[in-house]
């Protein structure tokens, strides 16, 4: 049939699957034979972005390594909801030690595999944003510096959700958490603090750094695939909305991740050896309000006693991201990308 000649496939690559695409162009997630690295029955909240992000990333890594994969997990939601003894949701080899040492344990596992001559077995370290940007930061930086052969994945839900929604260094400004109450002149989390870990990782000049969201599955899977094509330290930062901590409806998880990218608040890009090589352009530009209003952690910014000045500062952050990464290319440039 003429399917090969026609360059248009109804949902293109936006949806999870597409019967009109060739099997090679479909996602791992569209296959009934995907690993389901994290199984049903886990105790994540309704609409958990992290459970979704972990399955997306690990299933893709399983495909990329022909199933020769080992995961090391830091303490956090992902660990707690997946392994209340004696149950486990993991269908891959999986290790948990402490909150702060996951990168170091992953380094050790990779070294053990090297010693055993099992270069085919690849290692993934994973943690939430607390375990990555705060508690595990030292060991992670060491793992980067030594260029150990580990892909470290951070599932960023912007706070310590498992322990009751406390602020982390990945919590965005103005967001309410249990430790950044909505009081004073600058309610919620302060501006000007926190860590941008993808950029810190890039500063280590490691082979591969990328960001992704649970809203763009094709992109996320391609980045895992790409990461697995390198040896050495690699870092993937996945944006995973948290209905509990953000005060959003459980069905909005993917929509929120999409809006974070489309507003420019969460830039999606990839970098090799410290240099940005690719960005995901904004497809349907949206003001930050559209994203903020769906979350109760920003509720104090709206309504009669709202703070449009703070909303404007958040818009400023989005605009700065758009400028820094070139997220809004000229229309004709966009068109030529789509033709590729």
């Amino acid at each position, binding site marked *: 049939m003429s399917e090969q*000649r026609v360059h248009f496939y109804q949902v293109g690559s936006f949806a999870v*699957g597409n019967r*009109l695409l060739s099997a090679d162009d479909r996602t791992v*997630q569209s296959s009934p034979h995907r690993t389901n690295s994290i199984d*049903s029955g886990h105790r994540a909240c309704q609409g958990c972005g992290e459970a979704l992000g972990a399955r997306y990333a690990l299933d893709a890594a399983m495909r990329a390594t022909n199933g020769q994969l080992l995961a090391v997990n830091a303490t956090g939601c992902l660990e707690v909801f997946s392994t209340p*003894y004696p149950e486990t949701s993991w269908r891959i080899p999986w290790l948990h030690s402490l909150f702060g040492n996951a990168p170091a344990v992953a380094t050790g596992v990779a070294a053990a595999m090297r010693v055993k001559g099992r270069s085919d077995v690849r290692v993934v370290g994973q943690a939430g944003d607390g375990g990555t940007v705060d508690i595990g930061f030292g060991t992670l930086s060491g793992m980067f510096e030594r260029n150990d052969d580990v892909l470290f994945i951070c599932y960023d839900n912007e706070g310590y959700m498992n322990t009751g929604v406390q602020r982390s260094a990945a919590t965005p400004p103005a967001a309410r958490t249990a430790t950044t109450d909505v009081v004073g002149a600058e309610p919620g989390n302060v501006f000007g603090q926190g860590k941008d870990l993808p950029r810190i990782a890039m500063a280590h000049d490691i082979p591969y750094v990328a960001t992704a969201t649970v809203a763009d599955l094709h992109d996320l899977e391609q980045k895992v695939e790409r990461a697995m094509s390198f040896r050495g330290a690699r870092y993937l930062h996945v944006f995973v909305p948290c209905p509990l901590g953000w005060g959003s409806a459980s069905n909005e998880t993917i929509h929120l991740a999409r809006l974070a990218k489309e507003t420019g608040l969460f830039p999606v890009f990839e970098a090799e050896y410290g240099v940005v090589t690719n960005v995901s352009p904004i497809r349907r530009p949206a003001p930050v309000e559209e994203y903020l209003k769906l979350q109760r952690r920003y509720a104090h910014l709206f309504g009669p006693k709202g703070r449009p000045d703070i909303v404007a500062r958040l818009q400023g952050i989005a605009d700065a991201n758009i400028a820094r990464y070139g997220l809004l290319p000229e229309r004709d440039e966009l068109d030529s990308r789509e033709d590729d």
Partner: protein
Amino acid sequence: MERPFAITLDVGTSRANHTGSWRVERPVYVDRLPPCNNACPAGENIQGWLYEAESGGYEAAWRKLVENNPLPAIMGRVCFHPCESACNRAEVDEAVGINAVERFLGDTAIEHGWSFPEPGADTGKRILVVGAGPAGLSATYHLRLMGHQVRLVDASAKLGGMLRYGIPAYRLPRAILDAEIARIIDMGVEVVLNHTVHDIDVERREGEFDAVFLAVGAQLGKRVNIPAGDSSKVIDAVSFLHQVADEDPPMLGRRVVVYGGGDTALDAARTARRLGATDAVIVYRRNRDKMPAHAEEVEQALGEGVTVRWLSTVDRFESERLVLEKMRLNADGFPEATGEYEELDADSLVLALGQDTDLSLLEGNANVEVNDGVVQVTPTMMTNEGGVFAGGDAAPSDRTATVAVGHGKRAARGIDAYVRGEEFASGDRHELATADRLNTWYYADAPRTERPELERIRRQTNFEEVIGGLTEENALFEARRCLSCGNCFECDNCFGVCPDNAVVKLGAGHRYEFNYDFCKGCGICVRECPCGAIEMVPERI
């Protein structure tokens, strides 16, 4: 049991933990009625046949199409496609070119000689269909599929009714018309041409018919009393188009004025232009906004050099001079006379002021109710006389070919139920798939493919078809623009976005099902379903 060092308990899978018990709402798969299907007067399952066409399954698409409408190549040309006006894609970019794909399928079927399914097993019932226009042909087709014997009679020399005698060849080439009619007749139909039915009761009794379908159309051009000199040439548009179709066009001269604002007026003016009229002028009493003709036909006519005198009525016609009275619209939008007159040179005047139905064949029957010049019918098109059905222009309708096709189908179902002594029960209609239920993010950006138009200069001198067809590539592209509103097209989104792996993929063509043991009821699948084919319903607790 031997355990590794320091391990004292067995490890179990989390699948023992049935998180489905957390749920207060459950997702369920639904099928909703796509707006195109809802708008189609012929009741086509448009979304259904586009789905087949999307993967290049043109024969399957055509077969699905002709389940409801046996005339796709014709309708792909002459239908005014209310489906496209209703299409949700208009909210994304532009409506899907459904009509163009329908035509492509119809033409492809003719090219490949695809034939209809075998007629149903003979029921022994005999049905008389009076009138071989779109309603009569459609009824004949469906009745044959049901296994009834059909005698199709028509007063003209050829089959087709207004498709042949009302629609000019530049909109509907005769080869296409003949091919689609022949395919119906090949199902085994007794055809009687040049036969006018004078008394329906006599005809029914003598032929021993179990039921009758009246699809006599509206063949009589309405006349108004316009004072005209003896030498003035006045003709009604229906007769004019009929004579042209018979290849015996009347001599109208070089300056032809058409009076009226419907599609027939435009057909007459455009036909006059092709027959050599240098001036083809339409006189219409209201303005362009109020014109009943379809906008695209107006556009094409103006492009061919037809001109329009808006807000004018014809007062009188005396030797090559037409006196027009100017009108203005009052506050309610009705035209009012102004008392101002102007003149227009004209060789002939064509009246396109609407059409009446010749129902003299019903005069002997006291039961059939006629109101406003049309036969009153039930939803299954039956009149007050048992076994006598009516449809098309002879019944209350919008008087388009597509409505007539739909009437034919409904009448066939009504007749089938009647001759079996049953009541026809129509199935429940699904809830409408409105645009607000869609998640349009997922659809790739793709503007509509327009069909090529014949160069204007060539349209002024011949009856070549004005609107071209789509190539296969274009038709496939256009089919794939369908959003599949309200009907699962197996994009795997629900399967992929469930954080609890609670969606089971059943394999191509079998869609999905929920595993309620683990579904927590988060609703992401509903939110992220592109086409709105899942909904949340409260859980009984």
